[in-house]
């Protein structure tokens, strides 16, 4: 029996696949954590994993996670109460669990219980679900015609299976697609046993999860006044402290870099939200408009006032489908007329691709260095042109137009051959283009297969979650043969 805990420290050491590899280690070392969460799955990550799993049935998860656990073995021994919850399982949570178990079993931690959560992967069930009346129309635009076959389709599961896995004694919980905030809500519900219809409490836990899910974005990352972020290179990752009574603090490990203050927390609260009165998760629909933020100093911020209402009867589903090929290439263009020259080169690349027999379905020319990627009111024909003219026409230094710009040309087509031909039209400019162009070194651009995103929804009742649990020792021994 575990004693009743009154407060819980949950740290998030990864905000996406590709985040800093040392962050989870540093956070667990110094954070005094009860739970470490690691969030890896962006909207299209599962489609990339689906591609990998087609080539290797043992793949399809985020390999950074077992690698991280291997590095954490001394920490897991020193902190026997530290537990880990992650969505690293991707499309293959069991394989991720097995890879993780091998590291643990080989290091004397074979008794550690690992749970994995499945049920989110709807791709193998699409025909059955369609037969049951699920249309998988576009979430925002139901009138849009359905694309071809989905390469992946995953429902966003909630906190219940995570809580269930922890209730069964799991020390490590590995899921596929779950709502990011649910990685935090699961441990909270396990520890505090709040009712699943205590909406305000669920809203508080979900808000905490929302605030820490992007890692360092709440501890100084993306802060407008970035010069005020101390020791940015050693930025600490966030910790949510929740109490049984429903209080929530956001902080970071003492001694780490970064800053947690009103500015860093309010900025992240608004990150990637729509209607703040209706922030949907599978666990609760959160109303942020009643939330208050109080800076307690010393990198501790109190967040209060979250309200919740019951979540919708449908779960969000992230789908993807193969959709042609894209490529992009860059050149550095110099000269007093650099911007004009760069545009002429971009048009030449597209024209020569067309002359080669491949008119491209879509293309884009960007002149980086002329505010091409900064789409403010700075365009000459815009309503703010009177203010913007100096910046646009003169460049930053000394009233001169930019004498060096990066030309970036991008193209898309259903036909891979068209995009391949486009990629071959950059290097001929070495001899058959204007002077003052460089940056040809390095590989030729390559077509990449495009996986397009298709958000949809599915009835909650049709998506049961399943929890499996084994010791690391059992898992490492290999797949169990099903009895005939």
């Amino acid at each position: 029996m575990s004693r009743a805990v009154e407060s819980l420290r949950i740290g998030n050491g990864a905000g996406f696949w590709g985040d800093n590899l040392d962050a989870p280690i540093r956070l667990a070392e110094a954070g005094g954590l009860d739970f470490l969460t690691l969030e890896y799955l962006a909207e299209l990550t599962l489609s990339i994993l689906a591609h990998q799993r087609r080539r290797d049935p043992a793949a399809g998860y985020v390999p950074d996670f077992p690698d991280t656990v291997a590095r954490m073995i001394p920490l897991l021994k020193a902190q026997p109460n530290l537990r880990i919850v992650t969505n690293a399982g991707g499309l293959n949570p069991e394989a991720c669990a097995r890879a993780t178990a091998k590291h643990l079993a080989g290091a004397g931690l074979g008794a550690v219980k690992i749970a994995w959560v499945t049920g989110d992967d709807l791709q193998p069930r699409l025909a059955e679900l369609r037969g049951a009346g699920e249309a998988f129309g576009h979430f925002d635009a139901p009138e849009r015609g359905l694309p071809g076959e989905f390469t992946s389709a995953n429902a966003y599961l909630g906190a219940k299976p995570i809580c269930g896995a922890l209730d069964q004694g799991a020390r490590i919980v590995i899921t596929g697609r779950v709502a990011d905030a649910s990685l935090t809500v699961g441990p909270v519900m396990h520890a505090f046993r709040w009712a699943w219809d205590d909406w305000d409490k669920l809203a508080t836990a979900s808000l905490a999860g929302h605030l820490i899910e992007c890692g360092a974005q709440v501890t100084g990352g993306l802060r407008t006044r970035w010069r005020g972020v101390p020791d940015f290179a050693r930025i600490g990752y966030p910790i949510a402290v929740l109490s049984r009574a429903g209080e929530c603090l956001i902080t970071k490990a003492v001694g780490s870099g970064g800053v947690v203050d009103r500015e860093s927390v309010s900025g992240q609260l608004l990150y990637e939200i729509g209607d703040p009165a209706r922030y949907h998760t599978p666990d609760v629909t959160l109303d942020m408009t009643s939330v208050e933020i109080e800076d307690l100093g010393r990198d501790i911020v109190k967040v209060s006032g979250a309200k919740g209402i019951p979540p919708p009867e449908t779960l969000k589903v992230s789908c993807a489908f193969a959709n042609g090929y894209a490529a992009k290439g860059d050149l550095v263009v110099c000269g007093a007329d650099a911007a004009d020259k760069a545009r002429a080169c971009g048009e030449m690349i597209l024209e020569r691709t067309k002359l080669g027999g491949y008119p491209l379905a879509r293309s884009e020319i960007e002149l980086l260095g002329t505010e091409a990627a900064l789409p403010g009111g700075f365009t000459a024909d815009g309503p703010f042109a009177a203010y913007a003219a100096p910046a646009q026409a003169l460049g930053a230094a000394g009233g001169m137009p930019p004498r060096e710009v990066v030309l970036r040309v991008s193209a898309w087509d259903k036909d891979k051959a068209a995009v391949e031909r486009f990629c071959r039209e950059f290097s001929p400019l070495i001899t058959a283009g204007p002077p003052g162009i460089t940056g040809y070194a390095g590989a030729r651009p390559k077509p990449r297969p495009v996986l397009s995103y298709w958000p949809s929804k599915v009835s909650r009742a049709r998506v049961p979650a399943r929890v499996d649990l084994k010791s690391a020792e059992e898992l490492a021994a290999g797949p169990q043969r099903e009895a005939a």
Partner: protein
Amino acid sequence: MIHLKDIAHGRSGDKGDHANIGVIAYTRAGHAFLARELTREKVADWFHALAPSAVVRYELPLLFAFNFVLRDVLGGGASDSLRTDTQGKVLATALLEMPLPTPEYLAAMLPPAERG
């Protein structure tokens, strides 16, 4: 003339083909000023080059904040877009450059000093 960044901070990101920009005034006075000056129409004009199909301003008055949602501005979204900023990462930076008339009580709208 001042710029939005003098009295507010912000952050932007994507949801499919839509972008959102959170704008948070540093002070209550700044929030009251922006409630009048930073209209939905003005933000739509500022980003006219992206041709949003709709711009919505949501209110979070307790946080002195607004959430602007710009629909269909990301060239198809993260994977389909051919633009460099496929995820709307720089939209907050772009919006914070917006010029605004100098308010009468500017001193009451400036951010608190950074901690040392």
